[in-house]
Each structure stands twice: as structure tokens, then as C-alpha cells.
């Protein structure tokens, strides 16, 4: 019987919620309709519970709430002010990675040359060449080497800053 909704239930419930459950029309309907009787009973019980004073309890101090709210607002303002700087840090890191990728692409032949020179045979050849020619290493290799070190340091610094934050 209780699993079927009565068409008049919304109005009966609204009347009970407004404290008009003793209205003769409501009383007459509720007496004949178990579904509405249960609903009105629940609504009246809710009202009774809401009006029942809770156990005596000291509310939190309003001055503390006020100052906490001011502090939270200040933090929020600071966070908003720092947001562009945060975005720039991310952009900086992204730019560093993009520069590294561009540099590697641009100096690809130099990279392969330097990497191959790291093998024992390559190092021996490079050593012989520099000794016999009496000159410094290939300039493109040096540009690549210093560029890579510079970019690596930049990226590490960026990652370190992000992690420390």
C-alpha cells in the first residue's frame, strides 16, 4: 500500500510542512489514505525533531571564524596574484624542453659525431686528430656540448623549483 504514490500527496505534504496538518481537508484525506498518512507522519516528525533543542553546546567563537575567513581570503588573493608567475614557470620549462628538442634537431649530425667519439675507437681517433692538427675540437661539437649542458642545467633548475614548491 505504501509503495504507490497518491496524486494528492505533494499538496498534503506541503500543507503538513507548513504546519496545516490539522486542516479538516487534510485530516479527512489522511484518514483514508495510508500513503499520505505515512508521508504526513514523516514530515511532522521532521518538524518536531527540528524544533527539539539540541544538547547544550558552546558554538565556535564568531571572532575566530571572522579572522579565519579574513586569513583564507588573504591566502586566496595571494594565490590569485601568484597564478601568472606559476604559469610562467610552466611556460619556462616548456620553452626549455622545446629549445632542447630544436637544438637536437638542428645539431643532429654533430650529436651523432660526438656520440660516436665517446667510443674507445672514436676517442683515440679524436685524440690523434687534435694532436696532429694541433687545433681544438670541431666547433659544432663544442656548440652542441655547451648548449646541451646549458639546457640541461636550465631544465634541472626548473624541475627542482617545481618540486620544491
Amino acid at each position, binding site marked *: 500500500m*505504501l*509503495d504507490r*504514490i497518491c496524486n494528492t*500527496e*505533494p499538496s498534503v*505534504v506541503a500543507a503538513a*510542512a*507548513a504546519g496545516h496538518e490539522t486542516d479538516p481537508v487534510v485530516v479527512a484525506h*489522511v484518514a483514508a489514505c495510508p500513503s499520505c*498518512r*505515512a*508521508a*504526513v*507522519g*514523516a*514530515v511532522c*516528525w*521532521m*518538524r*518536531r*525533531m*527540528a524544533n*527539539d*533543542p*539540541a*544538547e547544550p*553546546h558552546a*558554538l*565556535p567563537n*564568531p571572532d*575566530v*571564524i*571572522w579572522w*579565519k*575567513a*579574513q586569513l*583564507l*581570503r588573504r591566502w*586566496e588573493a595571494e594565490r590569485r596574484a601568484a597564478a601568472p608567475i606559476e604559469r610562467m614557470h610552466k611556460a619556462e620549462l616548456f620553452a626549455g624542453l622545446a629549445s632542447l628538442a630544436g637544438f637536437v634537431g638542428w645539431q643532429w649530425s654533430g650529436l651523432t659525431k660526438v656520440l660516436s667519439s665517446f667510443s674507445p675507437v672514436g676517442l683515440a681517433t679524436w685524440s690523434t686528430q687534435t694532436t696532429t692538427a694541433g687545433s681544438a675540437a670541431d666547433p659544432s661539437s663544442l656548440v652542441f656540448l655547451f648548449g646541451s649542458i646549458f639546457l640541461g642545467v636550465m631544465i634541472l633548475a626548473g624541475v627542482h623549483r617545481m618540486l620544491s614548491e
Partner: protein
Amino acid sequence: MAEHAATIRSQVVSEHAAAASEATLLSEPEFQNLYRLHGRALWGYLYKVTGNAADADDLLQDSFCRLLATKFATRDDGQLRAYLFRIASNAAVDQWRRKSRADRHAAASPPEAPADASNATVMRYDMARTFGQLKPQERVMLWLAHVEGTEHREIAETLGLKATSVPVLLFRARRKLAGLLTKRGLGPG
């Protein structure tokens, strides 16, 4: 779900912000007055919904802090109270979602009344235990609808539900409560 609640909250905040260009934050005397008028009622609501005084304290503070971070064009007491209850309900539901199932059950089931308690205290404990057997969402919904008189649309926004689902869910919650009351011998005859 918590993200959804946060979205709803930000929507509510932006609705208020857009309501009028001269919207301002509440001043300290306005807040003190609001707290004096509605602090106790809000705490009572949060206590009955969470079944826990410490949680009610935390949520009360959280709700007023959120209220103080929002600009209002109006100082209408009824509107501010309704907004306060909405953000408190939102905070209560967020907190409930964060808690584990075990914690939820513990918080919603106040202990039995002490043996030497007065009739009024026993009745209060009994009411709290009965109400605690409902789901938090049902408790919030029943309170907002039948005690605060909140519209279904607003309940839907607060709880992140479809407006069309609210009457059905309310109907079920009322049925469940009626069943619990009948089981405890408190139901309608």
C-alpha cells in the same frame, strides 16, 4: 562527485556575483548579527545531519567562512539564511563523500542514551538514531525540503542532482523514514 559539488558551488558564487555589480562582502557587524541569528539553528541542523558535534562545529565554521568569501548584493536575512543552509548542506555532503564507509556509519549512529537520562534526553537520542539510519543525502534533502522549505530546484543544485529526480528521491526518503518510525513504534497509526 566532489568536483561536481565544487562546480555547483562556484556556479552559485558566480550567480551571486552576477546578481548585481555593487555586490559586497559582509562586514564584521553584519556577520556577527547573522551568526547570532542563525548560528545556533545551523549548528542544530549540521549536528542532526552528521550526528557528531565536532563535525557540526567544523562544518559551521567552514560554511560561515565560505559565506564571508562571497559578495552579496542583498542583505535580506531570508536569502542569506537560505544561502547559508545551502553551502552548509554542500559542505556536509562533501565531507560525507570524503569519509570512508566505516566512518560514515559511525558518525551517523549516535550512541544509546545514558541509563540515568531524562525522558527528553532519551527521546532526543532516539530521534537522532532514527534519523541517522537514513543516508546523509536523504537527511539533507528531508531537512531542506520540510524544515527549511527549500525549493526542489535549489535542493537539486545543492546536491548535484537533476531537478526532476528530487521529488522522487524525497518521496522515497519520506517512505523510508515512515518505515523506520513505524518500526520504532513512532509511526502514524
